[in-house]
């Protein structure tokens, strides 16, 4: 298809870039599209060699002491030059907040389209990229097809799983750039404390019910919520009868519609369900296979929350290490 060729991946988060490499390998399977990783930074030689083991056929490397710290404008300038002179057909960028800004600005400079937060990618028979993403606050999935090149899509962490490294090498293309002074000055950075957002605004809610025996046992739910960058919620009996909390989720309490709701030890009384039924995806964990909550769940786990929740926490920790 014309002068554009190759699929490139870039993320300022190196592990996310390795995930994009894995996803790209599947995407271009049975085609002769070349897969290249773009690495920008300082002292990146070793990582460049490693990228081949994770699926890259080629690495474009801009190694410059001035790129030591990630700064969008300087990285954008470097990336723009690279894309303009080599014309990749598809460019996948890690959909972090900074990554999305980078992708949007790059697309503006190249007068092309960009789809952020993609959860699915395919290439149609004519070589055009087709992406799926959630829109309308979780109420719809939009499928979009590109009509200009290069095709820029941003993909969030954990959509693809990084592959097992294989012994492999390839061509490293070293590129020199001149780096201008950044226009934004970073005055300070503060690490975030545990998200103190309102439960109605949380994207992920881990909710506990009467199956939780002691208030202290909420710790494992809190740990799970924290790992998922979500919030902990509870049912009315835990607030009104046991006096552990002041508020609750339900008809007479707060109504939530998170992307993911995880109910632990919740029977699923209709009053509680009224407060969470608009959740996009529902996971329910309960010992009782007859629990009513299972009727409104997408993923049903019949089991003891005291065993299942810690196991999920461990599994997530394992997964996060790889991101």
């Amino acid at each position, binding site marked *: 298809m014309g002068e554009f060729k190759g699929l490139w991946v870039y993320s300022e988060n190196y592990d996310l870039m390795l995930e994009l490499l894995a996803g790209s390998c599947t995407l271009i399977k049975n085609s002769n599209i070349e897969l290249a990783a773009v690495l920008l930074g300082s002292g990146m030689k070793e990582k460049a060699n490693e990228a081949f083991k994770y699926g890259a056929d080629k690495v474009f490397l801009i190694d410059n002491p001035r790129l030591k710290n990630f700064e969008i404008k300087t990285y954008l300038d470097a990336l723009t030059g690279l894309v303009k002179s080599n014309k990749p057909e598809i460019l996948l960028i890690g959909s972090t907040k900074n990554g999305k800004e980078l992708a949007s600005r790059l697309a503006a400079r190249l007068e092309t389209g960009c789809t952020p937060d993609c959860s699915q990618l395919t290439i149609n028979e004519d070589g055009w990229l087709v992406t799926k993403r959630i829109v309308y606050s979780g109420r719809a999935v939009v499928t979009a097809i590109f009509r200009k090149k290069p095709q820029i899509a941003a993909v969030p962490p954990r959509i693809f799983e990084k592959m097992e490294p294989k012994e492999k090498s390839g061509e490293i293309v070293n590129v020199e750039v001149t780096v201008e002074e950044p226009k934004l000055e970073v005055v300070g950075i503060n690490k975030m404390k545990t998200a103190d957002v309102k439960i109605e605004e949380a994207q992920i809610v881990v909710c506990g019910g009467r199956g939780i025996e002691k208030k202290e046992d909420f710790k494992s739910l809190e740990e799970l919520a924290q790992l998922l960058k979500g919030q902990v919620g509870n049912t009315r009996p835990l607030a009104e009868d046991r006096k552990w909390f002041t508020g609750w989720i339900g008809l007479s309490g707060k109504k939530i519609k998170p992307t993911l709701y995880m109910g632990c030890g919740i029977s699923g009384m209709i009053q509680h369900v009224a407060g969470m039924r608009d959740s996009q995806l529902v996971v329910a964990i309960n010992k009782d296979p007859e629990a009513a909550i299972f009727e409104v769940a997408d993923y049903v786990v019949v089991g003891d929350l005291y065993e299942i929740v810690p196991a*999920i926490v461990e599994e997530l920790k394992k*997964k996060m290490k790889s991101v």
Partner: protein
Amino acid sequence: MPKIIVCLKQAIDVSQLRADATGNLVTAGVPRKISDFDKNALEEAIRLKEKIGGEVITVTASAEDAKTSIREALAMGADKGYLICDEAMQNSDTLAISVVLAEAVKKIGQPDIILCGEASIDGFSAQIGPRLAELLDIPVITYARKISLENGFVTAERTLEDSFEMVKTRTPAIVTVTKEINDPRIPSLMAIMKASKKEIVTWKLGDINIPQEKAGEEGSGVRIMDVLAPKVERKKIVVEGENPDDIAERLVKALIQEGVLGR
């Protein structure tokens, strides 16, 4: 006296969406409103004006009429609204819309600061602010939850995944804001009545010299193929396994594939 431009999108009120029998989402007839985060941007602009003076101008690009939304913005405290409304803008993506907004801003005259929402409530692509910055060749600060404007500099606190970043840049600049920045005011009856006397300027694409092929689907980088409601019916998939670890592994894998983790 600073000149503040706020980009307002007239978005679909997503809470009122319904799917038809085939699962396609019906957007026709669904109420429209000022996109939530854009309202935060407008509120912040009005607060800046109340503190340091100046003028607040809103700009809206829309294929359909959006005067009711702009009137609401004027009632909240904006001084003047611009609406670029042209049927040729149907099916425009962020590439096409950002070009329209950039040309409109150029015609209105360079402001000291442009405020946008971090993303729109319907499309949620978070691209307009950054794209506009490139087209106008000025700096951009995204995801701001605090802003101050002083002596020709904007300082803002950005909300990143796991940190807050304080950044500073020279004006003119664009800042995109998060909903945490403020609680938008509800205009009083008096303010609503006064707003009816404020001016809304309406332009067609020709008025800002944008050729038809730069707008609509032709001017866009992507085309929407379909917009489907996710299935409302719950899946009721039973996750089974040998032991809790096994179940946890399968569940986490399923959740990753659903795309609900880590947004």
